């Protein structure tokens, strides 16, 4: 197990290195001087400019710049975000936990909801319920992320004002609330974006799990269980689900990119202060270092996520663990 982990981490390091090369190429292939946005900006102090010049060797030949770039990355330095007037890694470090929170809740919620829907569909396979749920699943699966978010915002903050209009906390009152009120305030602001992201991610899980369950059902051990006299429900619960859950774990790893992309739009529309909102805002301000930092961080997240999922898979499948 440990050797497997070490090997995967090694692969991940290679991947991140390649991503760094890609982003470096992106920075320098773009028209105009890549750092001019920062260097020519009067809002950036001379001290910062001098530091950047030293760190990235901006007047040096390209290969040397590349080496310095990778070196800086290895130390966690991602350049200067002039729109935030702080180092990029500082901006992302503050924003990342908010995105992770959203994604974590959506991950758990969407898998729970998706598996539930799949179970219902399989229990009544072929019936109208099955077909209707399939259609609804497909409908939500095909929806653009931002569209659902807009509709959700409209429906639940405007037509039926149940939730606050965006943000993570009440901008005015939060500082002055007691601990209990603060927790409630945070949860209230978290509810709608998390719910929306869950609804966006659930259909993939539902469709996948339904297919997985249907694949398993004809298997020999299921037939044996039926002959033994177990009810359909028990069969589903005891045998089918357990075996069909295994491929779900691999879906966890695969769902990270989609969750991250979904989080981007959700954060923009709900003004949720996460990594997605930071990058989307960086588009408007042409804060290129921040965008690139976001790309690298996103890739690291996805890579780590897939490693995690793979580890989970190996742990969960007794057949693999024996190896």
């Amino acid at each position, binding site marked *: 197990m440990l050797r497997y982990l070490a090997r995967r981490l090694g692969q991940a390091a290679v991947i991140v290195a390649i991503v760094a090369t890609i982003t470096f190429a992106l920075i320098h292939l773009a028209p105009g001087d890549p750092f001019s946005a920062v260097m*020519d*900006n*009067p*809002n*950036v*102090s*001379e*001290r*910062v400019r001098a530091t950047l010049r030293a760190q990235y060797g901006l007047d040096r030949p390209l290969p040397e710049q590349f080496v310095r770039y990778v070196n800086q990355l290895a130390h966690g330095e991602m350049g200067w975000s002039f*729109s*935030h*007037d702080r180092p990029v890694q500082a901006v992302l470090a503050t924003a990342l936990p908010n995105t992770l929170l959203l994604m974590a809740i959506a991950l758990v919620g969407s898998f729970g909801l998706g598996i539930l829907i799949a179970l219902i569909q399989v229990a009544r396979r072929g019936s109208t319920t099955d077909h209707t749920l399939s259609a609804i699943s497909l409908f939500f699966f095909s929806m653009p992320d931002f569209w659902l978010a807009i509709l959700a915002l409209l429906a639940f*903050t*405007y037509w039926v*004002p*149940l*939730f*606050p*209009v*965006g*943000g993570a906390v*009440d*901008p*005015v*009152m939060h500082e*002055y*609330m*007691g601990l*209990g*009120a603060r927790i*409630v*305030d945070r949860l*209230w602001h978290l509810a709608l974006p998390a719910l929306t992201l869950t609804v966006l991610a659930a259909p993939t899980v539902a469709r996948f799990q339904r297919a997985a369950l249907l694949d398993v059902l004809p298997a020999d051990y299921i037939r044996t269980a039926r002959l033994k006299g177990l009810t359909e429900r028990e069969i589903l619960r005891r045998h089918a689900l357990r075996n069909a859950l295994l491929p779900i774990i691999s879906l966890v790893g695969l769902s990270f990119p989609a969750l991250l992309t979904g989080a981007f739009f959700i954060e923009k529309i709900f*003004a949720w*202060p996460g990594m997605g*909102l930071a990058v989307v*805002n960086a588009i*408007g*301000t*042409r804060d290129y270092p921040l965008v690139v930092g976001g790309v690298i961080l996103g890739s690291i997240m996805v890579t780590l996520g897939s490693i995690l999922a793979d580890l989970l898979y190996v742990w969960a499948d007794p057949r693999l663990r024996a190896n």
Partner: protein
Amino acid sequence: MAPVKRGVLLCMALLCACVGTESSSGKSRGGTLVISTGGDPDVLIPPLLSTVQAGQISDMVYERLADIGDSLNTVNDAGFTSRLADRWTWSRDSLSIAFHIDSGAKWHDGRPVRSSDVRFTFQSSTDSTLGSGVKALVSNIDSVTAPDSATAIFWFHARTPRQFYDATYQMPIMPEHIWKVIAPSSWRGSDPAKHPIGSGQYRFVRWIPRAVVELAADTANYRGAPKLSRLIWSIAPDFNTAVTRFLSGETDFFEVLRPENLPEVAKHPELRTKQYRGLAYSFAWFNLRDPANHSRPHPIFGDRELRRALTMATDRAKLVRSVYDSLALPALGPAVRAYPTTDPNLAQIPFDLPRARQILDSLGWRLNAEGVRERNGRLLQFSLLAASTSKQRVQLAVLLQEQLRQAGVKVDVEQLEFPVLVERERKRAFDAAIGQWNTQPSPGSIRGSWGTMGSRASSGTNYSSYENPVFDAYVDSALASFDPAKAKAYFTRAYETIIEDAPAIWLAEPLPTVGYHSRLQLAPLRSDAWWAHIPEWWIPPDKRIPRDNAPGPTMSAPAESAGKKTP
């Protein structure tokens, strides 16, 4: 408000009510004003700021020597009220004014305000390493001397009607002891820039970028404490959210309602609106210089006849009606109707599409197969920048794009965030852009945005690079004359000149409409700064809502704290 939130706040309010609130001199102190705004302040340093939000916050934290009167008179000192200076004396020859600093004036850190602070403020504002746009506006002031700690004397080059205005309006006073240790080129990112110390009636509390700016009443202020104990700017990521926060009751004030918001406001009985005469005008200005080589004229816009033709091809009245409905008038030119020196009947370039087409043809721009005009292999095509943060400016750009398409001009609209747009303009790296000036009370501010000086100086804001010595001469003559009728005549000539030269398509003069919660008792809204009298706004105790009674930050002076407890 969500039921749970309401419940929690109600409990807090009950607790506060049980403990008792402060009351003094009938009109009680207290209350919170939450202003809904769609933009972050750029920098809280008076000579450097350029956003409206930064100006509002700065005006609460910092003070000027004297404040302009509500009538916005800028000739001599009629109507001005004392602030940091409790009295002033003109010299015999009127070439100097001696201001006496109020002896009780203190900075928020406790140090007394001295005349050396005034001198320092002037020196910094005119220091070219700081690069402030104020320098161009105070060119008539030769120097400021401080013979003693309470007297600051302003020395002028020449006697002009605006001496007093120049000395007071342009420069909120900054504390020398804090800023002199930092080199001007490093002011922007410095620590004091993020925690400004001023002498105004509100102290700075906190600024969370893109989220909140909070000010608290300076209860020990030498001019007395303001009525409202807290000011909060709630910064929304976009206009829509800002309006929704206002409509939902999360905020109390919204400064720029659009026509489509008015029906919504009408549905809320606790909200009101108020309109006032504004000092802003918007335009689509052309870069008269070649972005690739500043010493050459722009390949398209260097031609005066072409610019006039483009103006002629635009139905400006319709444009303004479409975007603003009844909340704006078509702009006359680079001047607002609120100025007494503006002639409301200024001759305009008429809307005449056929004639515009004729002119373009005669200039050699012929329609090609795709319907775009061409001359010597160059297409009549340019990019028009608009600040993505202002939906109205984007709308103006898209409407303009279509109108000019009718004339065979291809316009590409590019949306940028406001600070990026300003950067591009500053570097003259643009073709055309939608802009808006919130002008100052003095019509002389036109020199900075359309005068030759504003084009040449590195800190000037004449990004269009319009330079016409005839225009400059008329403006200077107008500003030098003490006779209002003569001043108006000169300005009329100046405006006519620039309108004929068409360095921009003049678009709209908005009639600002604010929305506010009915419990707020407002003071008159000054045209140049609706926020100027915020220290006089108050909320009757019987109308207060829970948010008004929330405890302030611990920076309140001791006299205030008796009776108020944290729930």
